[in-house]
């Protein structure tokens, strides 16, 4: 007895097709073409567009845990970790409200912190863009990073 490759292929195609059909028809599915982290009202910015804003004086907020910000950050970015939002926002509020534009970022497409912080800012009446796919996308676009250690 050997593997029947037609059965094998049919199994994979049928199961994959069932998954796509379930996603489309069950009411539990989601849009496959974009991140599931994106919700209505989120403003995503590709890295080059974010760099343009940076050059125009936008304020960048790093939503990663503070130790990551201490190691490296987008130039001029302030640390506003998601888990410390309530305690840190007050310290930064004046600077954030004075900024011409605000962009939040975190550690990549799997990181939800930038979405969460941007929504919390919106709730306070501060529009904030989100760097699409986070710091790795910024680095992939060969944009500058500040690697000076901070305390």
């Amino acid at each position, binding site marked *: 007895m050997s593997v*029947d490759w037609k059965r094998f292929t049919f*199994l994979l195609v049928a199961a994959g097709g069932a998954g796509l059909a379930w996603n489309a028809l069950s009411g539990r599915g989601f849009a496959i073409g974009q991140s599931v982290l994106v919700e209505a009202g989120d403003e995503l910015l590709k890295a080059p567009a974010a760099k343009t804003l940076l050059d125009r004086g936008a304020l960048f907020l790093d939503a990663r845990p503070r130790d990551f910000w201490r190691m490296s950050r987008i130039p001029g970015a302030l640390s506003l970790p998601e888990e410390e939002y309530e305690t840190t926002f007050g310290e930064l509020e004046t600077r954030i409200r004075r900024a011409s534009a605000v962009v939040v970022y975190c550690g990549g497409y799997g990181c939800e912190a930038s979405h969460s912080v941007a929504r919390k800012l919106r709730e306070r009446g501060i529009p904030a863009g989100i760097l699409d796919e986070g710091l790795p996308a910024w680095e992939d676009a060969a944009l500058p990073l500040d690697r000076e250690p901070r305390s």
Partner: protein
Amino acid sequence: MSAFLRHPRLHLVLRLLLGGFFAYASLDKIANPAAFARIVYQWQIAGPVASNLAAVTLPWVELVAGVLLIAGAWKREAALVIALLLVVFLGAAGSVLARGIDVLNCGCTSVARTEAPSSWPPAWTRGVGWFLLTRNLLLLGGALVLVAVEPGREEEEGGPATAPASV
């Protein structure tokens, strides 16, 4: 050793174990595809769109292959699919560990994101770590037996021989 690997009861146990595990593992992911996609993102393997496709299709592959194994239909093909899934999962887990990414819930059997420390199963079985690698290697060994070894007939392996029907 060869006789042991060919024993039909070993094959039955492996089919039920692998089929049951993968069919069970698929259910929560099928019920909550977006939550599973969030977990796949944390593995940081393939970008959001490819992760979405994996999150939508892989649980169904697990379910269909698992049910076929339990039912005893297309056994070798279903076992090969599961073996390939396990190779992919092992490679992905190795990549996650090598990059130092902390994945608290691998999404293997559940998509729950935050669970109480006392909840079952324990936290060390849910993350990407040595438990996951060891378990998947054992499951892969079982799947490869089903793919590569022809099971013997029950009476050949010392099991109960079927008596000829008396007239």
